[in-house]
C-alpha cells in the first residue's frame, strides 16, 4: 500500500501510523453527555467500503493526514491534511505554489 502524503508524495505504508476512524466527532470538552462520549470512545461505523481515516506520516514529515481508503480493496481515493475540512480550499491553492512557500506557511 502506498499513501500519497500531501507533503512528501507517495510513500510506503511502513512509514505511516494508523490513527483510526475519522467518522467520529469528539464532543466538546465541557460536554457531560454520557451517550455522546460513549459513542465517541466506543462505537464505530466499521464501514465496508470507502472509509475516512486518520494516519500520521510518523516516519516522514509527521503530518496528520485524512485518507479515504476502501476497506474492501485497500484502494486509496484521496489524501488530504487532517487540519479540518475547511482547509480543503487552502489545499487547492497550495498546489499552485512552489514547495518552498508551503513550508513557510506552516511555520
Amino acid at each position, binding site marked *: 500500500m502506498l499513501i500519497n502524503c500531501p507533503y512528501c508524495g507517495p510513500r510506503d*505504508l*511502513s512509514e505511516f501510523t494508523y490513527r483510526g476512524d475519522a467518522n467520529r466527532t469528539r464532543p466538546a470538552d465541557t460536554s457531560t453527555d454520557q451517550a455522546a462520549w*460513549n459513542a465517541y*470512545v*466506543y*462505537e464505530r461505523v*466499521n464501514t465496508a467500503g470507502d472509509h475516512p481515516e486518520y494516519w500520521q506520516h510518523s516516519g516522514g514529515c509527521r503530518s496528520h493526514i485524512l485518507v479515504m481508503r476502501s*476497506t474492501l480493496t*485497500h484502494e486509496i481515493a484521496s489524501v488530504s491534511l487532517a487540519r479540518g475540512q475547511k482547509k480543503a480550499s487552502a489545499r487547492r491553492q497550495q498546489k499552485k505554489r512552489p514547495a518552498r512557500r508551503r513550508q513557510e506557511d506552516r511555520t
Partner: protein
Amino acid sequence: MAEYSALSLLKHAWSGNRDWRPAWRKPEPKPSYDVVIVGGGGHGLATAHYLAKEHGITNVAVLEKGWLGSGNIGRNTTIVRSNYLLGESIRFYDFSVKLWEDLAQDLNYNVMFSQRGVLNLAHSPGQADDFIRRGNAMRHDGGDAVWLNRDAIARKVPGLDLSGSARFPVVGGLLQPRAGTARHDAVAWGFARAADRRGVDIIENCEVTGFVRDGERITGVTTTRGEIAAKKVAVAVAGSTGRVMKLAGIERLPIESHVLQAFVSEALKPFVDTVVTFGGGHLYMSQSDKGGLVFGGNLDGYNSYAQRGNLPVVEEVMSEMVALFPGLARVRLLRSWGGVMDMSMDGSPIITTGPLPGMYLNTGWCYGGFKATPASGWCFAWTIAKDEPHPLNAPFTLDRFQRGILTDEKGQGATPQLH
C-alpha cells in the same frame, strides 16, 4: 456403534467405502425455525451443536453464505490456550480448554487436539515478572502455568537462539502445558456433523440479505434462498458483524474489522513440538503434523474487510521468526493468507442478548476466536435458550461499554488495532 470407530472403518472398508453417509445433509431451507443462526463458522456450528445437545432445541438452521469452513475457522493458526490475566477471561477460556479436552469424544470426530503446550518467551526481567504474575493469576483461577528458566527452555525448544548476544535475549518463559493446537477444519466438520445428526439444518450458499421485523422485534431473515421466519435469530459472523448488523439497522457497534495474516512454511522434519511465542515483538509459531511451520504476528493495523494483507507485516513477522530461530532463515514460505478479525474495543468478546428483541449477538473475538469455539458455542447456546447470559459470559455483554465495566487484558483502551 459410533458412526466413526475402528469397527465402522473396517465395515466400510469391507464394502469398498461406497456407503459412507455424508457428514451433513444439504437440506432446503424450511419456511420457519425456532432458532436461525447466521454464520456457519466454528462459533455458529458449535452454538447449533450445544443448542441441540444441552437444551434440546433442534429446530435450528445454520445459514452460511459460502461453504462450510471458508471463513476464519479455516484461516487461523489453530492455537488453543487460556493464558489470560483477568479472572473473567481465565474462567471463560479455561472452560473452553476443558471442553476441548473432551471434544473429540463428544463429537465422535477426531479434532486432533494436541496439548503440546504454549510457551510465552520473556525477554527482560520486567516482562518475566509480568508473565509470572499472569501465571499466578491463571493458577489462582483454576488454570495451569509453569515458569521455565533458560536451561529448561533450551531442553524443550532446541532450535531457539538463547545466546546472550540475541537481539532480544530470552530470560525465561511461561508455559501453559494444557494448551496446544487442534485441526481447525475438523472442528468445523465435527460440529457440523454432530449438529446435523441431532436434526439441525446446515444451509450453505445462503447469504442473509436482510432481517424481517415486527416493529422493533426481529422475526426472521431474508436470504438469497428465500425468506426464513425464526423465533430467535442469532448472529455469529465474526469479521462481517458490521455488515450484517447494518442490515438490521444497527449502524454502530464497539467493533472494528481488521485484517490478520497467517503463514505456513514448506514441510520440515520435526523441529518444534510446542507452540512458541516471542515476547520481543509479536510472533506465535507451531509445527503442523504435515511438517509445515504455522505462524503469525500482529494485525496489519488498519480497518479492512479484505482477506489479504500488506508486506510490512510479512517482513516484520519473518524477521521475528529468524531472530528467534536463526536456523530457519533459509526455509521457504509456502503460503500466506489473511482473515478478517472482529476487533472489540477492550479486546474481549461479546456474547449477548440483543441488541434488538429476538436477536442474539456473538462477536468481538479479536484474534482469539478459534480457541474459544466450544465455550463460545456453549455460552451462546445458553444465552439463546434461556434469554440471559450464563455466569461465564455475563461479563461479556454488550452494555459493558456503557457501564464502564471493561475486560481489557492489555490495558490498551479503545484502540482495537492494539489488542
